[in-house]
């Protein structure tokens, strides 16, 4: 390998290694979110949704599909990526990553790329599951894939940061469980924020996940709580903030090097 060449073999090795781990735990990785999503459809889509009118001109069962995909995408991206980097830290094999001729960008590409791939595959699986319950129509498939990939990448990057920050497995669970899941529920997964009283609607606009869910829903139905450009800008902004934090971690060696 020459001095400045991109270490593509290194990126590929990490990516393949992580994807192999995913294949070993395929049942847990896919079955759990699919079963959970199916339960949401049974409860919210069939039991409660049958008594509700349309939301933004979309039957309620179909309305919640993008939100449910995002809910799984947020949590699974974080869990996959945080586990991917935290496990080598925990068992000590991180020494090999740190002593290899591989740049921070390449390490991130390998780990975050694998985590994002798993999340996208999961998102598509949940969509396929949803199609069994409600008729799905995707107005802007290109944008839908774009939001799916961008969100998976952003939250995988966020998970990578959490995996480095966390000093044990309990800490790793804190942010997805105590912050992301509540924000997703309060971010318009099961309702349009237009249905809220004005005060709470304003409060909700401070929840960044509103923009991601809204943009993704727009790609399905052409209707959204906030403008699609704002949604896209928020998603890209979150991605850039995560990238900046990762760059700082590698520059300072925060919780990676002594």
């Amino acid at each position: 390998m020459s001095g400045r060449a991109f270490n593509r073999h290194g990126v590929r090795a990490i990516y393949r290694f992580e994807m192999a781990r995913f294949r070993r735990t395929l049942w847990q990785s896919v079955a759990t979110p699919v079963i959970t999503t199916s339960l949401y459809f049974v409860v919210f889509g069939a039991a409660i949704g049958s008594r509700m009118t349309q939301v933004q001109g979309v039957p309620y069962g179909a309305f919640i599909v993008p939100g449910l995909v995002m809910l799984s995408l947020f949590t699974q991206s974080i869990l996959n990526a945080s586990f991917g980097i935290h496990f080598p830290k925990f068992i000590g094999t991180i020494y090999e990553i740190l002593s290899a001729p591989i740049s921070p960008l390449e390490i991130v590409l390998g780990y975050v790329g694998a985590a994002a791939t798993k999340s996208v595959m999961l998102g598509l699986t949940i969509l396929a599951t949803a199609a069994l319950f409600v008729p799905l129509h995707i107005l802007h498939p290109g944008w839908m894939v774009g939001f799916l990939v961008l969100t998976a990448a952003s939250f995988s990057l966020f998970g990578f940061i959490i995996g480095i920050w966390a000093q044990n497995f309990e800490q790793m669970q804190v942010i997805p469980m105590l912050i992301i899941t509540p924000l997703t529920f309060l971010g318009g997964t099961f309702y349009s924020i237009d249905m809220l009283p004005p005060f709470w609607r304003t409060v909700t606009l401070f929840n960044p996940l509103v923009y991601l869910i809204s943009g993704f829903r727009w790609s399905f139905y052409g209707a959204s709580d906030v403008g699609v450009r704002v949604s896209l800008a928020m998603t890209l902004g979150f991605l850039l903030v995560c990238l900046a934090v990762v760059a700082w971690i590698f520059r300072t060696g925060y919780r990676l090097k002594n």
Partner: protein
Amino acid sequence: MHGAMSTILSIANLSKTYASGLTALNNVSLDIRKGEIFALLGPNGAGKTTLIGIACGIVTPSGGSVTADGHDVVRDYRAARAKIGLVPQELSTDAFETVQATVRLSRGLFGRPPDPARIEQVLRDLSLWDKRNDQIKTLSGGMKRRVMIAKALSHEPQILFLDEPTAGVDVELRRDMWGLVRRLRDSGVTVILTTHYIDEAEEMADRIGVINKGSLILVEEKAALMKKLGRKQLTLHLQQALPAVPAELGGWNLQLRSAGEELEYSFDAAAEDTGVPALLKRLGELGIGFKDLNTRQSSLEEIFVGLVSARAGAGA
């Protein structure tokens, strides 16, 4: 012969002070020659692992520099690290992976394209080929140590760091490791090992460095070190026990052992005049007979303990 060798790893004025205030390395400079086996000796906490950590990019130095085959390990880390393999002290392995998968990962990380033949060769050399599809968690401690060596060798490094390579392994595996290290050296790999086992350094090393409290006390050819610092003991098994060392023998460094039945004389083996002929002559004059005699050279361990103790005494 060694004088003609070029330097492959150069450490210059290296220092490391941790955030806790602990100074692990204090202005260490050292050149490692291409193709040699260099043993770094030192007590726990001497700075050995920190030194290796900096050379490999795991620890950030506070000052100084390290170059591997001319490449700075910080500024030109890609080229430098590609030359280095590391077997750390801790048995850190991915328990759920197979032997082959983890070795393949190591090769890729170091920028090398997949090469099943090379991986097979490394695994066969380390008697791991039959275990290639086994999960690492099913292997014994000795086998896990081999896996770590296989990972370090998978990218064909020119410099190999072995941090306490035989800690906790059985005698047979230790001998195997020593054989492996020699084969690596014969194939042109430079080996730098840290060890607590002095006999390991004595058995294998071409040169020895002694580090204590973050400072390099000395660097010396092993043979020269043994010659220069090695003391010899002459033990005389007396025909009749002596109650005390006679005053007439005060000019020699003598001690009585075994209830006065053995007289031990310590002397500098490298000295021009060891004092042995004069002592034997004087004993004859005094009528002190002996049944047998033997000599013994100081081990490297005794030299090492002497050096570290002397340093501690000087610092006190």
